[in-house]
């Protein structure tokens, strides 16, 4: 029985390098499975938020009182932009022989991601100044838990990116480093999707309802 060879899009291991492709298959597949487990975690945070955002305000601030929609919109644009630039980095990984394109796109992604985190921290800071601290109500506990878990994921992604930039320099474009870049890309795009859900269900619904 012949098994079909799966060539992963974005991975430039050389078309004849069947061994590396075979090796990379479980790695990428396993990472998808891990992302699934991670998404279950977010799903539960969303469910918790849904059950507490209205019921758990405890006479404290409501979403309309504390959410800064323009700021959340800019954050959304930054993160979506960073997904595009990471997409360009993935293309550079596959089609450009030089390291410069790849590194530049990654650096741009890093700046956009860091900008997102910076703005998020600023939002949190302003909310806390207004007394909307997580200790105030169940709604705010759930809000900070959900949004900050996403923020921590993005921060972890940024650290990961730094490490991979170092590895690109130290180890070069080895198969292992390429596979790590691919996995970081998947991780990054997943966080984007999660943020789109946060923006929609937390911020837009929160202010509209």
């Amino acid at each position, binding site marked *: 029985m012949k098994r079909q060879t799966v060539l992963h899009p974005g991975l430039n291991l050389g078309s004849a390098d069947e061994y590396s492709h075979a090796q990379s298959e479980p790695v990428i597949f396993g990472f998808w*499975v891990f992302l699934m487990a991670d998404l279950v975690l977010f799903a539960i945070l969303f469910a918790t938020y849904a059950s507490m955002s209205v019921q758990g305000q405890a006479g404290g601030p409501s979403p309309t009182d504390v959410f800064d929609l323009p700021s959340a919109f800019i954050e959304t644009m930054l993160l979506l932009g960073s997904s595009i630039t990471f997409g360009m980095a993935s293309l550079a990984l596959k089609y450009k022989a030089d390291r410069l394109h790849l590194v530049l796109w990654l650096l741009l992604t890093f700046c956009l991601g860091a900008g997102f985190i910076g703005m998020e921290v600023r939002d949190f800071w302003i909310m806390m100044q207004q007394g909307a601290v997580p200790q105030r109500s169940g709604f705010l506990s759930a809000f900070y838990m959900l949004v900050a878990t996403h923020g921590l994921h993005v921060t972890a992604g940024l650290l990961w990116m730094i490490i991979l930039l170092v590895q690109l320099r130290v180890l070069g474009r080895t198969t292992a480093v390429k596979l790590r870049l691919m996995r970081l890309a998947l991780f990054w795009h997943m966080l984007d999707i999660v943020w789109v859900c946060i923006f929609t269900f937390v911020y837009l619904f929160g202010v509209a309802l």
Partner: protein
Amino acid sequence: MGTLTPQDISFVQTFENPVMSEFIDGAAGSVLVLGIITVTVLLTYYRGWKALWFDWLTSVDHKKIGIMYIVVSFVMLARAIIEGVLMRYQQSIAVNDPGVLTPDHFGQLFSTHGSIMIFFMAMPFITGMINYVMPQQLGARDVSFPLLNAISLWLTAAGAALVMISLVVGKFSTGGWTAYPPYTGIEFSPGEGVDYWIWSISLTSIGSTLTGVNFATTIYKNRAPGMTLFRMPLFCWTSLCTSVLMIFAMAPLTIATLMLALDRYAGFHFFTNDLGGNMMNYANLFWLFGHPEVYILILPAFGVFSEVISTFSGKTIYGYKSLVVATMSIAVLSFTVWLHHFFTMGQGANVNAIFGIATMLIGVPTGVKVYDWLLTMVRGRIRLTTAMLFSIMFLVTFVIGGLTGVILANPPVDFAVHNSLFLVAHFHNMVIPGVLFGMIAGYQFWFPKAFGFRLAERWGKASFWCWSIGFYLTFMPLYALGLMGAMRRTVEWFRPEYLGWLQVAFVGALLLFSGFIFLCVQLVVSVRQRDQRRVPAGDPWDGRSLEWSNSAPPPEYNFAVIPEVSGQDAFTRLKEQGKAYVSPATYEDIAVPKNSIVAPVIGVGAIGLGFALVWHIWWLVAVSFVIIWGAVIARSFVAETERVIPASKVRADHEAWLAQVRECATTPREQEDTSTNVGRAEVLA
């Protein structure tokens, strides 16, 4: 040192307050400390440290990791079973009498007993069993991510270590294994106990999630050529379903424990009584994990029973596809019934009815399985080995437990017996035969494969009778007591008519403990007689799947040449076609993963992290966190993670083994338990 004071050491407490309950606590701590000292002395005396470090602790070989998981689970079983006996003793004397244990100590006992039995006995046991067997059954050389596997082991071990540390330093939670808030919130449980629970459970739940990812990837991507999904042994199918459940069901637990931690450490309001907290969310999250967890534990045992019954009946398993479909159905249905754990908590009749019906539905695929196992035995050549005895006793006992489960699935009945000893009897009736008997059967079954010699059947059977009779004596009275109104987790009774039942249950508990002791005796006796019990040819039971086709113990790369699979019962097929033990035409170099220090470092860091969080030692929290992630990052810079075993060495070892096998006399099934059984089965045409 944070909130840690000398008064938290259990010996100091015993010294300052010398009452019986404290003596028991101090004695338990002493046993732990003495155990650690004994092991240290023995290792030093026999110069075992080097072997321990290089052959075991830093190993990423799935077989060794599997064995280490099972060692952890045996150690934890020893503690939790003694706790069970102690609780039965307390209850059997505490009728109109305070007994020997204080309520607080009793609360710690039922909390650690439950938490250990689920998270640190059953989980490591099934994970270890899958780790050892599944890759070999698939014809694979290892799991997909060997290092991740070791990290999972160390995270679980770190959680277990925290529970053990709580025996000596501080107290454990009194909130039961479910740790429902608001009781476990900071207001009602201000001490360190709940924090011990939170961090030990969090560590092991993360470990189990990673294990699930690893096993699922292995089963999907690492099968030998020709090993299609529907040719896999059933144990692999149940492992797959368990892995999928781990991937989906561990996250709710991790989140629930972290939210509880935020409530306790940072004043959040997830589960508090005031300011918008809602403990029902905890109940939902916990059981969203907790019910699938039952099947995470029980499905691998179902897999073991399928293998054992089929092998010791000398027949292909009956209704293979129906067993696969039943396993899958159970896995899916397990996510639809969590609410039956809290029927009484105010969802309303219609919601309860839906979940009650869903619960009863699970009986259908489980029933299919029971019939399949029975029909596998029909007209088979049945050998009543220890493993088979445990499997048969499982069938009988589990059906009784299932029936009481269907009774409990009726919300009105559940209202009447909720939280009573009837419930305690029911879930022990599922989990002891369903998980523990399965794991013991698997241990008896695969032990010769792992260590190269058979276990002593005589002691195994003695253990079997103790476990079986002990089970009925202990838990049948609890059904009656539950119906008489006895509630669970009660430290003192005021109804004299309970006395007789409780005393019978205590006798049963002693028998269960003897069952455990006999298992230990069996191990010691077998190790002593190992030279008469060796099975170098590797196939002592006329096995049917690929793990029996290599030597016992297997080489670290499992298979000298990856086998080609042409159908179900792959090894039986090879034997019948005369293709077993045939020299392969060519050998290739084999790359195996190198040992790694990363997993033990992460494990030590995790123990430090958990301990520091429990005692609010913030600098140690920071240091441990940096150690854990520093190890991960440092590892990613290591380029050479594999070493190559040259083809010539593989050839020499394999050919030597094949020559040895060809010289071995074949054993007819009747002489399985005699020294003539050297692991080469007689093949009947």
